[in-house]
């Protein structure tokens, strides 16, 4: 579970966050604004400030919020002047939007608020539908609303070009004021704000709903709040029923809105859905009898409320069902009083509940809230230490110095040797002013003039400030205030002493603060200009230089900037006046803030858990300090371990075998013996499920190693049969839950049947998981533990999101093991005269079995069989039968109980009374037989040798020894052992130094920690770090299909040949919604079925896509010829699992690529593409710091969808959302982010992914065709064209030596086609660069592969495991 935060406000109006993986409240940077109320969503906080204005706090994400503003310049040709901006009156404006309907003069396109800043000036866009345009970027057409082309033709009468300019949201990780309703913010202050949404059925998940209440009791909605516009566009008034003035509002994640009226009733918004996100009417809900409500909290399936007498109520009878439209399901039926007495209550995204208690104002959490028990059990206080805002400057003031006093301290920095900070200040001030000028001077294209003016203003103001500061009580507004137009006079109280401050708890210091800030920032600037080198009059005796220097630590710059940002956004309404006006109050700050009460005694006023994910059965470490699972550093634990080891040294070691002091070794009382786990299952045999008993027999030593293990299946199919599977031959274990038939399968992949598993079926999921676990653990211990996969590992993801890796780099120990596994003696009991032994890896060509027997003196005959089973009724592929009486050896086969044609051979030196070594080697066409290592004869295959499973020896002999070699000396792809790793992902990428990152289906980024436990692959005991909980969300889809007929229009009644009304995407399978089940018991539904309005290809407003017939190209608009339509329904579900992954916070990526090469400083650049299409590079990723330290943005002209970092410096490729490839130039070890994008054409179909390695570039298009870029040369990395390689590719990966790996959608084998096969391209040679075919690996159902690093051919391999 990723960490998330709970937020609370204390009585001083400061905001504190409590992360779910910490046990400490941390103050958010204090920027001079106190807050009264907060409302949190996952990535954003909305708050009601002490000044009754609304503020928004956007968490800084690594991916910037960028918006591209565009404007088209239109021109028309006339015979005299050629193309000019003079257009016909009926034409569009000279500068217009793309459709020409609105005029967009560049200079009128301004930043929406000062939380934004321009990234660049206006510039031309040089591509048109993937084609590069000439220098001026014009596209031509005959007339305006036409198709534009890049070439100018004789009949081109009009032309246009596109100007673009990017703006970026800069107020990240800081508070930014949201513009008020009226220009005068005090005209209608706010009294409540609430954020919700994100789970409105069918709506974009990043579209949030923000509702607020003004002091006039009016309900306002903030429109247009989404991922690219966090502060929204405008306030819209939502009328309330007459005499229903609202005091408080709460909006839930699914869009439910409950508002509390002055008289303590609740009104609930009805008709909220995707088409009408603000709803269409109110319905009154009566309060609990005899009480008036004060506040409500709306969750997904529950509503809690607090009445004015502090009693707590839970609303009964609500239904979470999104499709439920009945009044009751939305409003509930009755109030249920809960124990406890609260001031306020808040609900989390999964209906968890928090509150602030009324007596002791503690933050409480409701325990035991589960989907089945939404009311929970008890309230539990969260009492944790509090870390206050780390003020960067404790400028010699008392320890309780608030940031404000430190800011004033900053202002006092005047010493001549602090030039750097002055630069910073200057820069900061300019930024503010640049921002202001944009707002103030819309008529000017460039704000430079104004900036200068403003600069002068500031200078003047600073002087005034100095003046003001000299006077004790100078509150007179300075002259500059007069300039500002309609300055909102926010009611700002300036407490005379601390008592008034305390009384007005959250009085408003915002304006004052900003004033002080501006003053303080500008003062050194001014001082520097005016009196360089001279100490200012302002310099306070208490301000110590050392403190000042400390203040200007490297992060100060950031700090100051963030505050300035706040300042700039606060003043975004042009309300500079009052800010400047309060300059004179500066002198008051010192005493006021020094008298703040010490912050030990927190009184919590408000709590919000809107973005906080907790689970009832897995509460955060908030409650008891010992909750932390690892005590490894505790002194007593260290001591205990030390003494235990000492005990071992003293009491055990001297007596155990390792020390030779004793003449004899103490015997172990308990011998290492085998142990077995057994159970019942069903086994797939002869095309049916037969009941079987399964037994895992492990032979191990004391230290719980597994020397050998065998899986035994006893089943009865007309006759009792046994299937033996040696653990060494199980290479991949997978779980498949088929809940529709109540069956959970454990699939075991074996090298002989690489694409067809042996399957055990269990009746319950838990049982199947247990067995999967037992088998996987036995495999793992049998093969020995390894610390972490090397950088040469190949990673694979299954369609179910499960992750496996195969480590291509084997340690010597493993090589020995391989050899041991491939060549082994089969167990024969002493003196045995007959035996049937399992050949666990079969008997393919290359395999070899040797039977050493002692032939009895009076022997008549014996035989050696290679057969397909254990029993007597099995088929025999070769029967070697020396008969001494007849002095001949018979060779034969037996198929279905019938012997074949006998072949006779001489006995060579097989004679009674001596030892004899009969060996059989399997060749492609025949068996080669030899006696005592001398060639004897050969025997043509009559039965496929792959069916052989056992060797049987019987007759007048004593078996001395049987050796078996399955010939795995050279590792084949189908011999790879795949180890499972916990987690659930869509994409995994690894690269240099073994840095491995993964992306989940909900776009969260995870970093591999190197362990193996978690998920279904947990060991019997987890490692020290404990389970890391992860969660992920997926969508399940069904398609609804309809056909048009002239009488009834579109109906579900189709033609008999048509697809089902409800189907999967292909339309071939019937998929009613009820048949869609959760993939496993770890999943739960988080929504109901909804129509998907984001189906690729576009939809109409009911979600339909039209086509002339099934299965054709679908489009979102209905044409007359369209006779069929379909629409997609989706339902969200969520998995909770665990795995060795650490989540990277505040970032959502759709693609990543870990560079296989290190940069010059030894770091590994990790490229990513954000959900918004921005390309970013993570810097500072090291072997021991896999998460890196910072993101840098690689700006691109168009949004991207995938990125790939290749081996060589010139090979970072990206694909834009429109399917074009882009090559990044200038990528060197020194400049990992490169310099410039180059556009490369696409191979017909739009591309989805491009990857490069070892000089080859490969691209995958949307139709699943893989192409190779031709003529790619070091000097010409772009190449010239695309060459088709293969179709039906789902995912591919290129490694450092140019090997091409892929997952194929379907792969044809002898027994029909299988889906999701991982393959490697074979036959890639200089003369045939696209290769000749595919070689498949083990297993099916793969969805992605990542093989970026290949084992170098040189022998010495640096040990990456250390």
């Amino acid at each position, binding site marked *: 579970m990723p960490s998330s935060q709970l937020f609370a406000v204390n009585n001083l109006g400061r905001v504190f966050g409590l992360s779910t993986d910490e046990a400490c409240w941390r103050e958010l940077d204090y920027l001079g604004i106190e807050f009264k109320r907060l409302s949190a969503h996952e990535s954003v906080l909305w708050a009601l400030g002490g000044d009754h204005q609304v503020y928004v706090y956007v968490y800084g994400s690594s991916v910037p919020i960028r918006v591209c503003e565009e404007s088209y310049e239109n021109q028309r040709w006339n015979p005299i002047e050629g193309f000019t901006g003079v257009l016909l009156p009926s034409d569009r404006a000279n500068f217009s939007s793309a459709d020409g309907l609105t005029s967009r003069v560049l200079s009128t396109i301004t930043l929406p608020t000062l939380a934004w800043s321009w990234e660049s000036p206006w510039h031309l866009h040089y591509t048109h539908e993937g084609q590069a345009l000439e220098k001026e970027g014009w596209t031509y057409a005959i007339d305006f609303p036409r198709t534009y082309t890049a070439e100018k033709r004789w009949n081109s009468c009009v032309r246009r070009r596109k100007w673009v300019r990017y703006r970026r949201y800069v107020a990240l990780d800081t508070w930014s004021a949201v513009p008020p309703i009226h220009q005068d913010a005090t005209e209608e202050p706010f009294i409540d704000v609430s954020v919700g949404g994100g789970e409105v059925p069918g709506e974009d998940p990043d579209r949030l709903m923000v509702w607020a209440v003004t002091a006039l009791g009016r309900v306002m909605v903030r429109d247009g709040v989404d991922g690219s516009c966090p502060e929204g566009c405008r306030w819209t008034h939502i009328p309330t029923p007459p005499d229903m003035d609202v005091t408080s509002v709460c909006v839930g994640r699914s869009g439910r809105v409950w508002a509390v009226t002055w008289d303590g009733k609740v009104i609930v918004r009805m008709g909220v859905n995707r088409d009408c996100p603000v709803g269409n009417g109110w319905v009154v809900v009566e309060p609990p009898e005899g009480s008036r409500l004060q506040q409500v909290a709306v969750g997904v399936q529950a509503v809690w409320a607090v009445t004015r007498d502090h009693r707590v109520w839970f609303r009964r009878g609500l239904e979470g069902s999104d499709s439920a439209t009945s009044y009751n399901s939305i409003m509930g039926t009755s109030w249920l009083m809960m124990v406890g007495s609260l001031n306020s209550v808040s609900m989390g995204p999964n209906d968890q509940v928090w509150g602030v208690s009324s007596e002791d104002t503690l933050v409480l959490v409701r325990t035991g809230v589960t989907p089945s028990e939404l009311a929970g059990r008890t309230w539990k206080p969260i009492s944790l230490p509090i870390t206050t805002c780390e003020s960067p400057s404790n400028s010699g003031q008392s320890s309780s110095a608030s940031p404000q006093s430190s800011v004033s301290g900053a202002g006092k920095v005047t010493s001549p040797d602090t030039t750097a900070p002055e630069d910073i200040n200057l820069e900061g001030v300019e930024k503010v002013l640049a921002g202001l000028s944009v707002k103030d001077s819309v008529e000017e294209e460039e704000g430079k003039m104004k900036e200068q003016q403003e600069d002068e203003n500031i200078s003047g103001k600073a002087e005034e400030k100095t003046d003001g500061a000299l006077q004790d009580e100078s509150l007179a507004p300075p002259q500059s205030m007069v300039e500002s137009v309609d300055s909102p006079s926010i009611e700002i109280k300036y407490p005379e002493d601390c008592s008034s401050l305390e009384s007005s708890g959250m009085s408003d210091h915002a304006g004052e603060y900003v004033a002080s800030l501006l003053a303080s920032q500008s003062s050194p600037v001014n001082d520097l200009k005016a009196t360089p080198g001279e100490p200012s009059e302002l310099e306070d005796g208490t301000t110590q230089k050392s403190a000042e220097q400390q203040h200007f630590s490297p992060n100060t710059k950031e700090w100051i900037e963030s505050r300035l940002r706040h300042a700039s956004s606060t003043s975004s309404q042009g309300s500079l006046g009052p800010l400047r006006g309060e300059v004179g109050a500066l002198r008051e700050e010192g005493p006021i803030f020094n008298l703040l009460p010490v912050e030990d005694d927190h009184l919590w006023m408000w709590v919000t858990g809107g973005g906080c994910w907790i689970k009832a059965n897995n509460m955060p470490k908030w409650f008891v300090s010992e909750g932390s699972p*690892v005590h490894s550093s505790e002194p007593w634990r260290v001591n205990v371990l030390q003494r235990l080891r000492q*005990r071992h040294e*003293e009491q055990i070691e001297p007596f155990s075998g390792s020390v030779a002091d004793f003449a*004899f070794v103490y015997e*172990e009382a308990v011998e290492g013996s085998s142990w077995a786990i057994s159970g019942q299952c069903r086994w797939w045999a002869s095309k049916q499920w037969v009941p079987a008993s399964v037994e895992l027999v492990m032979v191990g030593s004391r230290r719980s190693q597994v020397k050998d293990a065998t899986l035994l299946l006893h089943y009865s199919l007309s006759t009792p049969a046994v299937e033996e599977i040696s653990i060494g031959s199980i290479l991949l274990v997978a779980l498949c839950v088929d809940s529709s038939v109540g069956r959970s399968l454990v699939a075991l992949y074996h090298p002989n049947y690489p694409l067809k598993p042996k399957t055990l079926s269990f009746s319950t999921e838990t049982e199947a998981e247990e067995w999967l676990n037992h088998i996987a653990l036995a495999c793992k211990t049998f093969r020995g533990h390894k610390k972490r996969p090397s950088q040469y590992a190949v990673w694979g993801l299954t369609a179910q999101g499960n992750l496996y890796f195969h480590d291509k780099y084997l340690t010597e120990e493993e090589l020995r093991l391989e050899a041991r596994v491939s060549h082994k003696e089969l167990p024969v009991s002493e003196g045995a005269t007959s035996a049937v032994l399992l050949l666990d890896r079969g008997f393919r060509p290359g395999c070899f079995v040797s039977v050493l027997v002692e032939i009895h003196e009076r022997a008549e005959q014996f035989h050696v069989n290679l057969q397909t089973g254990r029993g007597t009724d099995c088929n025999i592929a070769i029967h070697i039968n020396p008969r001494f009486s007849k002095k001949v050896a018979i060779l034969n086969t037996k198929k279905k109980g019938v012997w074949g044609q006998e072949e006779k051979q001489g006995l060579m030196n097989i004679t009674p009374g001596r030892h004899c070594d009969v060996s059989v080697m399997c060749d492609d066409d025949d068996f080669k037989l030899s006696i005592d290592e001398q060639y004897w004869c050969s025997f043509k295959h009559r039965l496929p040798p792959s069916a052989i499973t056992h060797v049987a020896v019987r007759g007048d002999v004593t078996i001395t020894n049987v050796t078996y070699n399955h010939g795995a000396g050279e590792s084949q792809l189908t011999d790879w052992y795949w180890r499972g790793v916990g987690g659930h992902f869509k994409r995994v990428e690894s690269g240099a130094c073994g840095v491995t990152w993964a992306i989940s289906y909900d776009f969260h980024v995870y970093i591999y920690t190197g362990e193996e436990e978690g998920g279904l692959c947990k060991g019997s005991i987890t490692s020290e770090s404990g389970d890391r909980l992860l969660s992920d969300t997926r969508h399940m889809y069904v398609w609804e299909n309809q056909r048009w007929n002239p009488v009834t229009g579109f109906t579900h009644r189709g033609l008999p040949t048509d697809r089902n009304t409800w189907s999967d995407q292909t339309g071939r399978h019937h998929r009613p919604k009820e048949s869609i089940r959760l993939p496993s018991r770890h999943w739960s539904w988080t929504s109901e079925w909804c129509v998907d309005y984001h189906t690729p290809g576009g939809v109409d407003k009911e979600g339909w896509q039209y086509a002339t017939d099934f299965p054709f190209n679908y489009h979102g608009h209905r044409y007359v010829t369209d006779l069929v339509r379909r629409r997609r329904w989706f339902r969200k579900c969520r998995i909770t699992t665990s795995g060795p992954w650490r989540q990277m916070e505040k970032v959502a990526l759709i693609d990543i690529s870990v560079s296989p090469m290190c940069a010059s400083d030894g770091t590994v650049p990790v490229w990513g593409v954000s959900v918004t299409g921005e390309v970013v590079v993570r810097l500072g990723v090291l072997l021991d710091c896999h998460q890196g330290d910072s993101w840098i943005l690689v700006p691109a002209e168009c949004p991207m969808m995938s990125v790939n970092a290749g081996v060589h410096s010139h090979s970072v490729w990206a694909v834009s959302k429109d399917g074009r490839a882009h090559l990044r130039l200038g990528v060197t070890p020194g400049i990992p982010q490169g310099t410039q994008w180059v556009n490369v054409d696409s191979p017909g179909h739009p591309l989805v992914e491009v990857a490069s390695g070892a000089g080859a570039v490969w691209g995958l298009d949307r139709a699943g065709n893989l192409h190779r870029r031709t003529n790619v040369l070091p000097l010409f990395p772009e190449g010239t064209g695309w060459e088709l390689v293969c179709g039906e590719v789902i995912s591919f990966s290129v490694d450092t030596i140019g090997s091409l790996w892929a997952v194929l959608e379907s792969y044809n084998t002898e027994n029909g086609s299988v889906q999701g096969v991982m393959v490697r391209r074979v036959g890639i040679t200089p003369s045939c660069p696209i290769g000749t075919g595919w070689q498949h690996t083990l297993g099916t159902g793969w969805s992605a592969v990542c093989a970026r690093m290949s084992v170098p051919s040189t022998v010495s391999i640096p040990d990456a495991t250390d």
Partner: protein
Amino acid sequence: MAEDREILREVWDGRVPVCVQLASEDCNTLSAPDPYYLMVPRLSYFPLVMDKVRKHFLRLISSDLQEAEMWLESDGMPLKWHYPVGVLFDLHCGGASLPWALTAHFSHFPEQDLIRCPTREVVESHFMSSLKEADGLKHRGQIITNMKSKDHKQLWMGLCNDKFDQFWAINRKLMESTPEEGFKFIPFRLHSPSQAPIQRLIRPLTEDGRRVTLADLLLEYLSVSQEGDRVVIQGIEVPHDTPLQWLSEHLSHPDNFLHICYIPLQS
């Protein structure tokens, strides 16, 4: 529970070297037979690990004693088989002189001191009842009663065969606790030589949420203690500030009881 494999593994691998002599009165041979040297798992019970010894001595004793039950004695004290080996060792030998010298008897069964142990099943039922009692204290018995009988069997077989993973695969369920609450009560037994063990109710946390440590337990239940007395768990002297919850999770014997041995100075 917080599983600390490193500690659990060390605890599990605890062994005691023993040297078993046949009691002279039972010996049927002329010369005294060779003693039998053995490494005995601390966490096991003597009846489970003495098969080899018994077999070894059976050849040397008179035929009328062949069917008799073997019992062990250390320094004149009959050993109670129903205590784990490690506890007996800590109480009677304490590692003063290794190996631990034991005498095997086949006659004169001390009926007043020992209970009979005719078969392994008796040990099993004793072990299981201890487990149940411990789980009763920890979780009101909910976990053990919800287990299948094959899980019970696996616990027992894990102990008998000295299989750490086999045992802990199940035992981890018994050691589960919520981090904020811990066990209901800590199942412990405070042994001291020549006294019946003390078993009381003690919670892992105090009313105000403080972790109860070993020191708290000793203060409450150890009436007399003086300088030089040793308190031994699993053969080691545990720091007294170690939380009981952690001790219970990691240093308990397979019967899920934390066996604490108090050894006064004079002994």
